[in-house]
């Protein structure tokens, strides 16, 4: 479903010079799979996801999403995706219903289809009470529901979630985690980035650890354990980063 091949992205700035933020990254995400991109802050997770979502152009390499190449058919790639970040990216002065209508139009849906699908999602995420209220007046939980509904609106086969639980309390993060599992149940392919070990261990079918722009390892939890000789993901992660694992002694 997602095939990332040798992606390279370099950023230039006066202070730090040229940096390979994504350095020859390759991995595959299979259909109906939840794939976690795990890495510390600044590892290149967000940039990788932005490259796949065609928000950024790669210096070299490519990715193919549901048969569409990010370099050749970026619009078609985007039509296959639902994109959600931890910041949610909601328009505060618009209501959830208005946001859904706007995004429905952006994804080329007809007015009748937008109405039907919006009501379906409003019902499903119990948003009826606040669907007409300005988003900046909503609680974080309500905003999360709105953001998920927006991501799901056009029924995309692939979901890209960039640190979707970042900064959320445990009950609100649980709503997102529940949705990720539901996405898979609904036949979607999910690629998400996180630095929360428990989340990755609990949700992902397979995990890739990225550090300093390079993929260090890819596999299921069992494969990671076998490759590193460590049991818990936290230990595997620190090991791959070359950091000592803390013990009581």
């Amino acid at each position, binding site marked *: 479903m997602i095939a990332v091949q040798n992606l390279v992205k370099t950023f230039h700035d006066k202070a730090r010079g040229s940096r390979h933020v994504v350095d020859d990254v390759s991995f595959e995400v299979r259909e109906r799979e939840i794939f976690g991109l795990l890495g510390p802050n600044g590892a290149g997770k967000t940039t990788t996801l*932005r490259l796949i*979502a*065609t*928000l*950024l*152009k790669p210096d070299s390499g490519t990715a193919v999403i549901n048969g569409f190449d990010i370099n050749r058919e970026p*619009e*078609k790639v*985007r*039509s296959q*995706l639902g*994109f*959600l*970040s931890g*910041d*949610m*990216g*909601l*328009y*505060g*002065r*618009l209501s959830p219903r*208005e946001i859904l209508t*706007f*995004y429905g*139009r*952006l*994804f*080329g849906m007809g007015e009748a289809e937008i109405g039907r699908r919006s009501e379906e999602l409003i019902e499903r995420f119990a948003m009826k009470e606040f669907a007409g209220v*300005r988003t900046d007046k909503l609680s974080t939980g309500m905003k999360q529901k709105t953001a998920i509904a*927006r991501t799901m609106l056009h029924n995309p086969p692939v979901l*890209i979630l*960039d640190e979707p639980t970042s900064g959320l309390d445990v009950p609100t993060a649980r709503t997102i985690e529940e949705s990720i599992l539901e996405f898979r149940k609904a036949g979607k392919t999910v690629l998400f980035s996180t630095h929360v070990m428990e989340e990755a261990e609990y949700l992902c079918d397979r995990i890739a650890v990225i550090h300093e722009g390079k993929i260090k390892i890819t596999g299921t939890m069992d494969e990671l354990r076998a490759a590193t000789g460590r049991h818990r993901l936290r230990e595997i992660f620190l090991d791959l980063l070359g950091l000592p694992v803390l013990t009581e002694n």
Partner: protein
Amino acid sequence: MRLHYVLTVFRKEMLDMLRDRRTMISMVAMPVLVIPVILFFMGKLVGRAEERSQQEARRLGIAAQVSNPQIRAALEGLDLPLRTGLNPREAIERKEAAAGVVESALPDGRPRVELLTDRSNPTSAVTGEKIRTALTKLRESQVREGLKSANVPVTVLEPFALQQTNVASAKKMAGNLWGSMLGYMLLLLMFTGGMYPVIDMTAGEKERKTIEAFLASPVHRLEIVIGKILTATVAILVTAALTLASVTFSIRSENFSRTPEMKAMMQTIPLDGQNLALIALTLLPLAILAASMMIAIALFARSFKEGQSYLTPLAFLVIFPALMGGLPGLELSLVTALVPILNASQLIRGILLGEWTVPVFAMTLGANVVYAAIATVVATRTFNKESVLFRS
């Protein structure tokens, strides 16, 4: 470019903009409320200052050291108290007298009158002017009497009559007075009216992190940026229309004109359908230019605050040429028609004066269309730059 996507972006941006308090203040409240209030208080203040000046002059009077009865009679005719026993110079400095008159004698015995005023003080200056007029009149009447008693005809004094006639109609006079400030006010408020929506649509979108999900939709970036430019253009034109309506209403109202003549003149301000259409046509490419230029600049900002600091200096770039364009003496020519903002300011003044020509109008319009097109290209290119959109 697909028009329906541009319109989708435009509709959303318009809805978002109309619900933004800051935008509504700069776009609607400034022209609709602030301009009439400023003009009303300006009219009141000027009127009150004149009244206060007259009252002060009546209270302070004239410090006079005058013995000639005719000169004294002329001063008394001014209906201001004549105060004796004061040192006129010191009295004026201490604000104990509005003006002073000191009489002395010339070597041939004729009286010499010295008029003392403090020209930095409006009350003193106005009183001094009144005294000068009264004494000039007295001198002329004494000359006439002297000529008459010497049997010399009055024509010796006035070999020919001089009459000055203003050929400008009241309409033209109003156009001249109004044209100088209308272009300036319109252009300045257009920029400030468009500033907040532009920052909100660019830096604001980055700050609120809404841009990622927006860009992750299948819409082309060109369609997004054109939708945003269209929204900013509408905001700018709405500000211009409200400014025009507000200034017209304020200037034609009772409070602005202090004299019946001024009021009558203001009623003749030439804002008919044709002139309004010409002004609108002048402003249209300029609104697109302003919208695109501001979007191209504000895109570099990471936050609303940063956007404000990037765009505020732009207001100064508008003030100077807009002000210059309204000044009399600088004629609109095919050369000045190439200078953006200055050309529009001059053309608006020319339209109100009825002094515009088709070649100059076409040149101004053509030049601004070219500038607007260049600015639009720059804005779309900037919107396509990753380093700008994802600047952190």
